[in-house]
């Protein structure tokens, strides 16, 4: 079961549920929940007070898997999961500032209009709230696909500079990888200092 891709696991779950074979769902759910739980917790820790992290993550996993069953999830499961987490985090902070409601994601709330979330709690400035927008801006400003590939592979994944250069080819060297990453970091930092975060989707 653990060798199956996310979408195959969801298909398996859907089939088991439609057949009324509820015990058969357990292993697939365990693989999905275990597989993403810690990642979501650590992302949430960047943006939420620790006492609320586990609850938001628990709700995110339940919502994401449940909406996958209705065919209302959008795109691949991992992206959908992170989208829902971001949404829940935004709702959390909206509730803090008493924003009355947030527009639902396509398919997520099935047309209803309500706020998900709880009463406001202690003020907390998440570390990554503003930074993420700046990072997306810096990324979108990169003109070359090869430079974006450097950021994808070397900065945001776990590839070494040498591996990244080899994978991209086109004359890319390890030194080029370091230079591109360094320029990206400087631009990202500049945007943070300017307070600009009006970028696109990463």
């Amino acid at each position, binding site marked *: 079961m653990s060798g199956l891709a996310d979408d195959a696991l969801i298909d398996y779950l859907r089939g088991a549920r439609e057949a009324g074979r509820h015990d058969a769902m357990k292993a697939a759910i365990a693989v999905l929940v275990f597989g993403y739980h810690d990642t979501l917790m650590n992302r949430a820790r*960047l943006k939420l007070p620790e006492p*609320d992290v586990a609850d938001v993550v628990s709700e995110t996993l339940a*919502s994401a898997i449940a909406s996958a069953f209705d065919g209302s999830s959008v795109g691949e499961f991992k992206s959908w999961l992170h989208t829902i987490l971001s949404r829940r985090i935004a709702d959390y902070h909206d509730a803090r500032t008493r924003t009355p409601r947030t527009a639902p994601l396509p398919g997520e709330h099935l047309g209803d209009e309500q706020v998900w979330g709880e009463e406001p709690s202690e003020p907390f400035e998440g570390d990554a709230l503003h930074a*993420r927008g700046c990072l997306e801006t810096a990324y979108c400003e990169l003109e070359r696909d090869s430079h974006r590939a450097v950021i994808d592979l070397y900065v945001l994944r776990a590839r070494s500079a040498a591996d990244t250069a080899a994978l991209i080819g086109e004359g890319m060297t390890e030194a080029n990888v370091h230079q591109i990453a360094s320029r990206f970091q400087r631009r990202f930092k500049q945007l943070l200092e300017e307070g600009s975060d009006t970028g696109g989707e990463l």
Partner: protein
Amino acid sequence: MTDVMQLLSEYKEASREGGGADPRPYLARVSGTDRELLAGLIDAYLEQAPRREFDAERFHGSPAATIAEEVQRSLAGESGIWPALLPQLRRRAELRRSELVHQLAARLGAQAQEQKVGEYYHRMEQGLLPAAGVSDTVLDALGKIVGWTAAALRTAGTLPTPGPPRSDAGAVFARTHRGGAPEGPPDARAAQPAEEWDEVDRLFRGTPPSA
């Protein structure tokens, strides 16, 4: 000052098994804009991280196991994601189940039938009560207790739409009995003739079938 890219590299190395490293100790080593910078990079890195390989030993008894159990009850039941959501809201409100039931019965004007309210609430948490039958009155009262809106609770009860009945051989719904849950069969009341339904039944189950 510690180099942000070096810290990111250390964090990635520590997280190699799949998102398992707590980012806060790394953030604590920088301040100001560099801290924000590192947080943004770690956030984006985690979003791209692959699914962690399943490890039965680590899973057993972990918080993920509890969530998986709640998700399983949600998918197997008739109450949407209430099995995952309601216990969490109750914990956040720092209420034991008995305390919540006491307040819920009072808000519904059903203090004399607190036990029955408790049985129905238990079925909501276990995914054994069809969400569609639970009235707005109940959800409104419950929402006031746990700090959520009735509409949000209603939506949570509809995700996903209930599946077909269980078909695996000899199946009996596994029920957990946490927090002093009632021991009686949760669907015993379903066998009651419609004329025996009282106001509490109608609040939690809607209109009697023969009405």
